[in-house]
């Protein structure tokens, strides 16, 4: 099954072999690492710029507006212009701020998201590292980002920043539980934490379809919890521009602000791609049982297209949330987690474990 889908490992193997033929094995590894790093850096920057553009367009259309349309065709270069503006802006130095931590914070945030992106399978065979605890690794490194937010809010020596950072801390720590538990349900289903293994387990049907209603509930809970974890509306309490002006990044300017901004969007991509991988079959094409011709046609669409289509769909849903709902209050946010999402999630996980034990899933 899926044998005729193009396997990117052929390409990587080819590059690897030609490099090894040209130089010593040590150097080949070094060059490969550099290539991977550069590819990811470029991808990261382009993706960030594109997501900012996409968000602005999506929200504009929802609000009966056109959105960016001046720079380039359909305003496509708008975010690049914005980036150039941010690059050339002055980095404001805050009096009596902890200078070292203040400068460190944006890097922690951006490195956390950068590390997570390494383990995501973009297409068949296109994955930087296929760890055997891949999903665990991603959950672990994405939670590091909140430390950056906390440090940034604390080091800014601003009251609004501190309140924002504290909110963010409480929020992310609570919602980690729900994210972890809802992903755990898929881990129970597939019996593996390795992302490639999880995708392989969905070859005969995505978990959101195969796992009956519990999997769907887990998916919904994951969407809500993930939106909260990346501090996006309606859970953007850490920024809450109507309450805390800009929350934890009030005092940041120029490229340091851009780092926070970029990391937010990349985090959105990361949670969306995890949802894709865990629930929607990753890069696998949509297959419907007994529809051989349909399945055949679906297979002709490259796997990388499938992955990005599903991911951007999830991203669109997350944006849809943000541009529709009012913001929650901090106590309501915690109530939602501890009184609704967590108990439901626990029950759901037990139900899933039961289903798997009885072998009721397809």
């Amino acid at each position: 099954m899926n044998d005729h889908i193009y396997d990117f490992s052929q390409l990587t193997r080819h590059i690897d072999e030609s490099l090894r033929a040209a130089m010593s094995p040590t150097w080949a590894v070094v060059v490969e690492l550099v290539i991977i790093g550069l590819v990811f850096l470029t991808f990261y920057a382009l993706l960030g710029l594109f997501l900012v553009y996409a968000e602005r367009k999506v929200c504009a259309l929802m609000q009966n507006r056109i959105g960016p349309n001046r720079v380039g065709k359909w305003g496509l270069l708008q975010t690049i212009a914005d980036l150039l503006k941010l690059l050339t802006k002055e980095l404001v130095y805050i009096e009596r701020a902890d200078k070292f931590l203040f400068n460190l914070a944006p890097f922690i945030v951006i490195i956390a998201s950068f590390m997570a992106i390494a383990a995501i399978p973009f297409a068949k065979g296109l994955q930087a590292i296929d760890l055997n605890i891949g999903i665990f690794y991603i959950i672990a490194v994405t939670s590091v980002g909140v430390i950056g937010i906390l440090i940034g809010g604390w080091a800014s020596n601003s009251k609004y920043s501190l309140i924002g950072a504290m909110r963010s801390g409480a929020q992310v720590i609570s919602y980690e539980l729900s994210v972890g538990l809802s992903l755990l349900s898929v881990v129970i289903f597939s019996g593996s934490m390795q992302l490639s293994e999880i995708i392989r387990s969905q070859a005969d049907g995505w978990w959101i379809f195969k796992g009956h209603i519990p999997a769907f509930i887990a998916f919904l809970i994951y969407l809500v919890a993930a939106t909260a974890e990346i501090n996006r509306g309606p859970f953007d309490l850490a920024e809450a521009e109507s309450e805390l002006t800009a929350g934890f990044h009030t005092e940041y300017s120029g490229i340091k602000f851009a780092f926070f901004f970029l990391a937010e969007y990349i985090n959105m991509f990361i949670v969306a791609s995890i949802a894709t991988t865990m629930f929607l079959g990753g890069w696998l094409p949509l297959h419907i049982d007994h529809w051989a011709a349909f399945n055949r046609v679906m297979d002709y669409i490259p796997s990388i297209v499938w992955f990005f289509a599903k991911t951007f769909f999830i991203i669109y849903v997350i944006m849809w949330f943000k541009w529709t709902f009012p913001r929650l209050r901090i106590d309501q946010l915690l109530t939602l987690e501890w009184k609704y999402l967590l108990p439901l999630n626990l029950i759901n996980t037990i139900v899933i474990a039961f289903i798997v034990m009885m072998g009721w899933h397809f």
Partner: protein
Amino acid sequence: MSGIIKYFADILHGLKTLWAGMRITGKYFVSPGEIVTEQYPEIRHKKQIVSDRFKGEVIMPHDENNQHNCTGCGVCELNCPNGSIEIITKRIPDENGKMVRVIDKHIYHLSMCTFCGLCIKVCPTQALAWGQEFEHAVYDRTKLTKVLNKPGSSYKGLSSKKKEAKS
């Protein structure tokens, strides 16, 4: 037990109301015909963007003979609440050799004007009117001080008086 039912009913009700909101935004997302944005600099040449009565600035209409209706009586200056209008008059001899007072400069400070319209309403000869120009941004605020009567212009009534005198 009823507590549990209420718990789940609350969740369902909440989801329903959230979905109602998402339907609204989703509907507008897929209906580009509802876009209300007007692209400003382009639209300026395509259609009239302000109404005929738009209060852009106070102007003094001149006819083809470079003549206006202003007698220089100064009622507009009196009625202006913020001193945006200054009237400077001069005395010139008419053909009978009698000195008459006519307008020399009708100075209008656009930067001070609040567009209340009292000057236009009270003008006994309808010499003033609203202009529809609205792009008033300048780099030098002295440019906002305007002289409304054009150079070399004269009072319409004066020439008609002359004509009367001739006939």
